[in-house]
């Protein structure tokens, strides 16, 4: 790993932060009217919250953005707040801060996505490897069109169909939420079971869509490996078929898959917005959806900024660690 590579990668990260913060600053100011005040007035007219709260919010907003000050002062102030992770106050949960809302929602997203991404990876990779293996039964090849279909369908549409089939027509699973309102959330058996039951359908829709992606990728890699000379050698040595499958071909084909897995895990925060919306799952995506439908402007900005920064940071760490894990990676291009 060269110093130039590290420097370039860190520079890219700071550019991502700079671009994200600047977009959040500039876009609202492109409109001639003050969008936040307009939205807050709309909100007041709809009868949400009392007038005093709204006034206070507008005051906070004006102080925070200092619209009477020159643009560059506003811009610097915006940066100061972002660096303090001060993302403003939610309109819908006044006086709750946007930061607290995000921190409350993030664990649900991380839990759901981490588990389902890893499960999809494991199942898809094994099935994909078996698909490419010459000794596998021909019947197994029905999985190819199935994988293609699954990987082409947006996972939230799969979620809608799953809700309809497994929560309504044949009601085995709950339709929405992450836990029953009666059960206190904690590390007790009933609570864990309850959470698992609620997470099952959202997880299944992500897993089904993911299996196709991982399966097709693994199959393509395996097909290449099987043609390699060392495989002929392994067969000639009379090694057990099982040994060749696991130790020779799968192990070699795994590397790009693992790279893909780490990328997918880095993107967790941005991964499942619409699944959460469809299942009313109380994670980051659902928070964002409620903010959009309630015109909760600070929450929209806060969540998007948080997601962009967490994805950017995760990718930075990954890119810096990866050359250490795989010495074959050429960092100099």
């Amino acid at each position, binding site marked *: 790993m060269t110093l130039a590579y590290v420097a370039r990668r860190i520079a890219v990260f700071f550019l991502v932060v700079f671009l994200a913060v600047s977009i959040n600053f500039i876009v609202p100011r492109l409109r001639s009217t003050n969008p936040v005040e307009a939205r807050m007035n709309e909100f007041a007219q709809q009868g949400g919250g009392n007038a005093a709260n709204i006034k206070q919010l507008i005051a906070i907003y004006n102080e925070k953005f200092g619209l009477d000050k020159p643009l560059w002062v506003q811009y610097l102030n915006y940066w100061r707040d972002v660096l303090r992770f001060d993302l403003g106050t939610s309109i819908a949960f006044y006086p709750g801060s946007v930061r607290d809302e995000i921190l409350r929602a993030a664990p649900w997203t991380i839990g759901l996505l981490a588990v389902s991404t890893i499960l999809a990876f494991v199942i898809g990779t094994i099935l994909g490897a078996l698909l490419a293996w010459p000794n596998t039964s021909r019947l197994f090849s029905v999985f190819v069109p199935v994988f293609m279909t699954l990987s082409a369908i*947006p996972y939230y549409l799969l979620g809608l169909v799953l809700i309809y089939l497994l929560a309504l027509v044949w009601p085995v699973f709950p339709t929405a939420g992450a836990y029953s309102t009666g059960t206190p959330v904690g590390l007790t058996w009933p609570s864990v079971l309850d959470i698992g039951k609620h997470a099952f359908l959202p997880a299944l829709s992500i897993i089904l869509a993911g299996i196709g992606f991982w399966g097709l990728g693994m199959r393509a890699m395996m097909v290449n490996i099987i043609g390699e000379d060392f495989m002929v050698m392994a067969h000639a040595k009379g090694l057990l078929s099982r040994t060749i499958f696991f130790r020779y071909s799968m192990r070699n084909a795994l590397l790009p898959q693992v790279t893909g897995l780490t990328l997918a895990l880095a993107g967790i925060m941005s991964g499942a917005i619409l699944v959460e*919306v469809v299942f009313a799952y109380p994670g980051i995506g659902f928070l964002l959806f409620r903010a959009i439908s309630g015109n909760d402007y600070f929450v929209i900005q806060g969540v*998007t900024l948080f997601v962009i920064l967490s994805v950017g940071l995760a990718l930075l760490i990954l890119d810096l660690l990866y050359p250490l894990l795989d010495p074959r990676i050429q960092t100099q291009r």
Partner: protein
Amino acid sequence: MRTVKRVAHAINTNRMLVVGISLIAIVILFGIVGSGFVTRAQADVGAGRPSRPPDFQHLLGTDQQGRDVLANVIFGTPSTLKIGLIAGFVGVAVGSLLGLAAGYWGGAPDSMIRVAIDVFLTIPNLMVLIVIASMLSGVTIEQMGLIIALWAWMWPARTVRAQVLTMRERSYIQVARLNGMGSFSILYRELMPNLMPFLAASLVGTVAAAILASIGLSALGLGPQNEPSLGLTLYWAIFYGALIRQLWWWFLPPIVITVLLFIGLFMTTAGLDRIANPRLRASV
């Protein structure tokens, strides 16, 4: 004659492409032919009684606000495709220009474009699109396409750059250079024709990604609200709890059309990839 033979051969060997294009054609035809059977007015609020199951007057029933579901899907399909095509063409045009410039000239333009690609790829497109769309009060189909195009140029740029890098040092380019051909004619006459299969594959891929983003944005309630689109139909279905109330005629049709469209786009991309990338032909 030779081209006819080659096309026939391609159809025989590249079933994936044929099935993919046919699926897309079916979806497009559904939009075109369908518009002869329903009127645009039926796609608007109050065209029939609310939340009615299918009958002869409304073949796919009506939604909560009395819109005819069939009319919505029929008029929503072309507008969804239009968003995808606008974003796809703009994205591929901008991306391939940047990719050509980066690959051909190298040096400072190349490093700048590469950093820009990396930065834009790191930022999840949906996040920025949400910020932009939530600040605009109502977007049109065309604006939606252009907004999505902002985040649609990176993959084409990267693909084209990589291809140009491998082509730049080939002998036919050297010969052209020695013949005194200018940079632009080399780009236009020597590189472009060879890039065509890659551009076609990345166009289809970009259109697919743009349609995915547009349906996602619309399903979050951030798309064009005055024109029917597949995403908007889904948004209303989620908004009014069509699922819980088991109004299948409302939420299933947009899902079916969207799924057919995505499978078609996926297979077309895979088929074109096989033409552009001969290494894939033997193995799969």
